[in-house]
């Protein structure tokens, strides 16, 4: 990133300050990362388009069924712009994407942005609940496990996390349904109560799905946080200093080591968002939640390529942007990264 050229007649002190700001390591880092994300975002649009459009067979034929006349097929193709070469369609679609117009659903004719606007809040709420559930259990368990490595809590946490990493979220979700909705019918097995119909009902309908998504995450985070904490406690100078000052073991762990490990946990949560989004697709299906994942599957079954490609693109962009934000946040919070020496 170059320093700014002083504007004609501008106050020299202002331009000097701006130049210094632009040379600051954080801003340069942000600029570099943003520049690196752009080709990836472009690649994401290209791949999304390719996957959904270079498929064998005509989409119009599939929509109309096998007994459609060639004229009907040609007419629908013209209507859907399918008679254009792929790169023309890609260019038009890309223009629409950049200006926020994702086209209209082939099946229902509604604008895709409207459909996404209806579905997105449910999925966002589900993802947030899952993250909260998992972190609420991760932090205390990892702290207790790291307090005495190889102690009883630590061993139990390792067994638990290995179990959680090996259980597929849909398997766990169905086990939850069998236990909490079939054997002990205390929670609803399917269905969604919107937030506007009362908070309690809303949370009751989200609790099983949030646990189903959150449990594997909890295991993954616990494993990571426990490992990081143990490593910090074992070797880092600041831990030795704090212990030498006479700070109690819990206090060293929580106030010193945990604060440092929090950076790592933050990164893991951000990087894991892709897996989390994949999980919502299947969990929404199991619990009949009207979220974005259910819409994606419906669109796939309806062969509604416009909706499918819009949602796939949206989810991929969310992942790229989340990773970018995680990275930048990390850099802003941790001076060691800002000045170019990666820790660890």
């Amino acid at each position: 990133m170059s320093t700014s050229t002083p504007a004609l007649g501008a106050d020299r002190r202002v331009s000097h300050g701006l130049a210094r700001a632009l040379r600051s390591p954080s801003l340069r880092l942000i600029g570099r990362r943003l520049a690196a994300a752009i080709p990836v975002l472009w690649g994401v649009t290209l791949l999304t388009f390719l996957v959904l459009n270079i498929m064998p067979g005509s989409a119009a034929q599939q929509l109309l069924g096998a007994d459609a006349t060639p004229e009907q097929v040609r007419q629908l193709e013209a209507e859907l712009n399918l008679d254009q070469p792929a790169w023309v369609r890609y260019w038009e679609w890309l223009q629409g994407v950049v200006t926020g117009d994702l086209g209209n659903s082939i099946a229902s004719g509604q604008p895709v942005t409207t459909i996404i606007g209806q579905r997105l809040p449910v999925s966002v709420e589900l993802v947030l609940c899952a993250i909260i559930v998992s972190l609420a259990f991760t932090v205390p368990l990892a702290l207790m496990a790291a307090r005495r490595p190889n102690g009883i809590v630590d061993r139990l946490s390792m067994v638990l996390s290995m179990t959680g990493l090996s259980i597929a979220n849909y398997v766990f979700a169905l086990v939850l349904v069998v236990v909490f909705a079939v054997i002990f019918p205390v929670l609803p097995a399917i269905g969604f109560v919107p937030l506007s119909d009362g908070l309690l009902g809303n949370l009751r309908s989200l609790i099983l799905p949030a646990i189903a998504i959150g449990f594997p995450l909890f295991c993954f985070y616990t494993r990571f946080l426990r490992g990081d904490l143990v490593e910090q406690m074992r070797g880092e100078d600041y831990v030795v200093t704090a212990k030498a000052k006479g700070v109690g073991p819990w206090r060293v762990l929580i106030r010193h080591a945990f604060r440092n490990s929090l950076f790592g946990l933050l990164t893991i949560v951000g990087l894991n968002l892709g897996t989390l989004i994949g999980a919502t697709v299947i969990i929404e299906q199991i619990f009949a939640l009207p979220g974005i994942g259910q819409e994606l599957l419906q669109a796939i079954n309806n062969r509604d390529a416009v909706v499918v490609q819009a949602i796939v693109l949206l989810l991929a962009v969310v992942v790229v942007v989340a990773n970018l934000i995680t990275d930048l946040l990390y850099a802003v919070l941790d001076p060691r990264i800002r000045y170019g020496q990666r820790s660890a």
Partner: protein
Amino acid sequence: MASVPPEAPERPMLETAGAAAVSPRRRRGWVRSLDVAIPAGVLALVLGACFLWPIVASIPPPTGGDVLESNLPPLSPGHVLGTDPVGNDILSRLLHGGQASIQIAVAVQGIGLVLGGSLGAFAAYVGGILDAVIMRCLDVLIAFPSLVLALAIAQSLGPSKVNTIWALTFFSIPAIARISRAATLRLREQPFMVAARLSGTKMWRVLVRHIAPNILPQLVTFGLLGMGIIIILEGALSFLGLGVPPPAPSWGNMIFIGQQSISAYPRLVLMPCAFLFVTVLSFNLLGEALRARWSAQ
């Protein structure tokens, strides 16, 4: 993922494994070998049951059951685990479904090892702009939520066993390529590599004779750990109706079909779930134990 250095996502996992493995007291030899022996034994049992039992013992076919024999309870004559609502033998479906799941996982990781491994090693070895371009392309693939990309590909290819394999390789190739690239980068400046380069060894020969043997154990370990994820993803695809098409069984589509009568017959869901869990757990434990050995060396 654009802005993260290539090895970042894998790094935390490797570190935690390392921290777990190097315990203050070195474990004795036989305990260490149990780490590998138990999951390997369980896996051998599952593999043997899925691939050998249907050949050796005579069990009913997994499809085309008789509706008159539907919903038999476990331990019925001729049907050890009972039958499903269409009258197919559940044990037979479990074993044949396991064949499909494991075949797919092995094929996906095999293709991932060959293509991803060589792509990563090649990128690291030539370096420069080609490396940057290859890694950026892989970044694009990794940017997609794995299941969502697999769903889209499986949909556009149409549901079948082979197409499921291709859809899932989009997930395994970039992951293995990154590991392979990181491992090759570490090797590049080793004396034997410099010597090979100085004596004018051709590139493909360096890759095949010098790099491949060195990075292969690490890649295979990673591949084993990935088996669990692939089996789970395959199950998810089949569960959503885009993997192995019914009536052919796979653990995923058995869970899906069983889900429709979950309140009446929970066992239809729980039995394939249990098989899936035990298999994935064994793969994970085996991969973890092997990796712990690696990082201890």
